[in-house]
């Protein structure tokens, strides 16, 4: 038991030191990187480690006769949660959301310290002691609170009232409802019935099963299947078109959407909204191929208002590419990310 708790305490101390280092910018906050896509799990694991660490710490301290009063345990844990949310989590969470999490964890801490009568009494005791001011220290504390509280609250309200210039929060619908049909280069395409003419098997027939079997493998790296290299000169059909689509992608699209299609291209840093990340399961993996065809052809300017057409720098690609080229690029995007396009049923 003791050994286990010591390990917990050690984890707690190391974790706390790391966090303190991050707060004071001694350790860069990306030392232990939050990996895209795994972040929630990583955070939960980290928090679990911290809880284990705290349990261990308080056990060890208690067995050394330096038990931390329940009151400070509660306050300390709450402060820890707030600091963790503010300094560890990247990209940063807006204050309003942090305030919500903070309230929830405050309630949780209260439930924990008031779970039985005895604990609650222990928790209340320090507050009552200060109010009663029986000892010298408590008297001092009481006067300190008497002066500090009004000053602090006055200061906070001054800060809150001072005119500020924070960026207005604007929420954008990333995938708005598409139109029923779209007209590109003089031809009308009905989104529900159109098909990618290059999604074909070697015999030239539309074949989802065949093409899905030749996309890159899921898992780290998303590499091509060993026997399905689009750069093989003998390719006919699907893989040949994938390569042609890739050529168009790397002449036009990678500047924003990035060499790995993750929305981190050369110019991406300058734009807001940021370019779509196709490797994210929330983008093309969720959409039909014809939806992409509409988005690519009409670009940002073709979006309905909820998609912020005024801010998107996505070109209406019908100005730069032919219909065939657009279909090939879409084919390539699904191949390279290893996703299947969604179907309409």
């Amino acid at each position: 038991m003791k050994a286990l708790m010591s390990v917990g305490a050690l984890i707690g101390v190391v974790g706390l030191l790391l966090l303190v280092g991050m707060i004071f910018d001694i350790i860069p906050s990306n030392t232990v990187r939050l990996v895209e896509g795994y972040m929630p799990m990583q955070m939960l694991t980290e928090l679990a480690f911290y809880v284990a660490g705290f349990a261990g710490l308080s056990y060890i301290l208690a067995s050394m006769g330096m038990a931390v009063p329940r009151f400070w345990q509660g306050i300390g844990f709450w402060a820890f949660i707030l600091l963790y949310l503010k300094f560890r989590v990247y990209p940063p969470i807006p204050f309003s959301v942090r305030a919500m999490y903070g309230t929830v964890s405050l309630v949780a801490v209260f439930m924990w310290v008031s779970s039985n009568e005895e604990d609650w009494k222990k928790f209340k005791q320090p507050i009552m002691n200060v109010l009663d001011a029986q000892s010298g220290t408590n008297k001092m504390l009481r006067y300190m609170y008497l002066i500090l509280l009004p000053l602090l609250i006055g200061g906070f309200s001054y800060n809150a009232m001072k005119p500020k210039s924070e960026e207005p929060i604007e929420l954008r619908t990333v995938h708005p409802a598409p139109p029923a049909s779209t007209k590109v280069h003089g031809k009308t395409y009905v989104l529900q019935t159109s098909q990618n003419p290059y999604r074909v098997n070697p015999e030239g027939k539309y074949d989802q099963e065949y093409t899905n079997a030749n996309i890159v493998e899921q898992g780290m790296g998303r590499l091509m299947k060993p026997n399905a290299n689009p750069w093989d000169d003998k390719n006919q059909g699907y893989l040949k078109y994938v390569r042609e689509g890739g050529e168009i992608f790397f002449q036009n699209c990678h500047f924003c959407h990035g060499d790995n299609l993750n929305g981190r291209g050369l110019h991406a840093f300058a734009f807001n909204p940021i370019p779509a990340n196709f490797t994210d399961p929330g983008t093309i993996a969720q959409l039909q191929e014809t939806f992409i065809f509409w988005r690519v052809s009409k670009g940002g300017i073709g979006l309905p208002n909820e998609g912020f057409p005024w801010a998107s720098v996505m070109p209406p690609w019908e100005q730069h590419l032919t219909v065939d080229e657009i279909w090939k690029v879409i084919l390539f995007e699904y191949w390279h990310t290893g996703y299947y396009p969604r179907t309409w049923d």
Partner: protein
Amino acid sequence: MRKSASQKVGVAAAAAFGIILASGQLSLPVVGAEGLPEGFKKGDLAPEPAAEMIEAGKRVYFTKCVWCHGVDGAGDGPGADRLWPRPRNFNQGTFKIRHTASGELPLFDAKKPTPGQNDLFETVTHGLPGSAMPSWEGILTEEQRLQVLSFVTTQLVKDRKFTDKQSETQTILQMGDMKPKPANEESLKRGSELIVEKKCIECHGTEGRGDGNAFNLKDDWGFAIQPADWHKCWNFRGSRQDPYNVKNIFRTFSTGVNGTPMPSFADNTTVDERWDIANFVNSLCERDVEGNPLPIDPLTDKPKINFVVPSNPVEGEIPADMENEAWQKAPKRYVAMGGQITHKPRNFVNRIDDIWVRSLYNDKSVVYLLEWDDRTKSVAEGKLPWAPTQVNIDVKEQDPKTGEDGSIAANQNKYKVYNDAVAIETPVKWKELPAPIKPRYLFGTNDQFPVDIVKWEADGSIRAFKGTGWDKDFEERDTYEENLKVLKSEWKNGRWYVMIQRPLGNKKDQDYDEDTFFEVGQYVPTVFFAWDGHNGDAGRKMAVSAFYYTFLNPPIPRETYIYPAVIAFGVVLLEGWVLTRRANKKKGKTL
């Protein structure tokens, strides 16, 4: 033992050199132990990667890399011709960022992904900022990165061999043994003298903005190349996603950049001098008001962006002098610029990638102070082939696949020179649109919701336009220009300083249908455009920003001081009440 001995020799050599320096005898080559430059040691060539590694790497290469670097690794993939710098041609075995002496192959060991001991692995891991090479960390596993490098170093490097003991040597900079010198005043001062003495400023410019010899430099393949701008350390190729780390500069300075005119300075500087220079160069990188490094966004490896450009109020005239206290106190914002690649003619390679903006206002006007690094001052040599107000949609773009001779990289420094220029676009009648709706960032939505564009050009002109959509010609507004004023426009040592004044707008003097009216305490959407005349930028070939907001900071109202005092007093009363209650309750109990 050996290490400490050679270190002692090194110290002795350095001390000896110090004495020579002090006695006024200069320019002896600096040689450490074993006849090598100071700080370097002989190393062994790494063993050949296993055949399975090479085979597995081929699969990685043909999924991820081939698109830019090409089938034979000659840097001629489908994406190459629209990039500048062009993707690396692996065939010659020339690699930029290394720990090895100038001209040598970089460190690569397929079994040892140790930072500081595996240059190519670190390049793939962290990417080369300022170029199209991204960071592959988190995308490819460590194993996959080593595999693809095994393939590249054995199959695509054709003119040299990483394992050939006859022709290759490894003289390795011992970064691990060295501790950076503290960047104190003395070190910075020596650094600032050394960059003159060692002729760094001949290429990098007097202020280090890369404007020294911006036109005549070529890389090994004959493509134009630019000296680094020391004020943008996040664009250093060797910054390894840690741009303010002085070690990166020390390493690049010690080993040089193979394939470029940047030599290694290991032979004619001591380690101590190199730290001074690295400290000084590092100190030039943009920092915040307190002198701290700018926060870097780990998703983009560029400074973090704040989209609000606050404008402070001033009493009376707005000063035209940058050194004035009002300007010194005004918050400075980093405005990121990308190439305009939405409509033709597209600008795939924008040389201006950021503008620093400050703003002040008084009761009549608002002034923007725009500063941006531009290696060359460009004033048009001839007339534009089309009117600057014209849309010019039908312009023919260069074919994406032109081969090396016709590529964008080959065309650098050969463009017809137009005016450097900068423009500020703000929507007209922005208050009539329900937030967040705005006129489109490129030249407005339509006649109903147009934009107001104020454009300054390097020939000294300032003009106003009305934009009514991306596909409509601009309307030039002849009468409005009288209201505009250029308070300052100066190009100095690779940087433009331009101060543009425009009216705040009011219904009495200005036209509500054509002008943007600025209101205190409101977010006025603002877009910035910039043109580099030597990049052939003109019309729509330009750099653009996203939507920012100009925010005229309101003067602090009186209520801000009164209410908190009232609240504090209320808290005192509340405290009194709680204490009395507690005291009464206790009394009741004890009685």
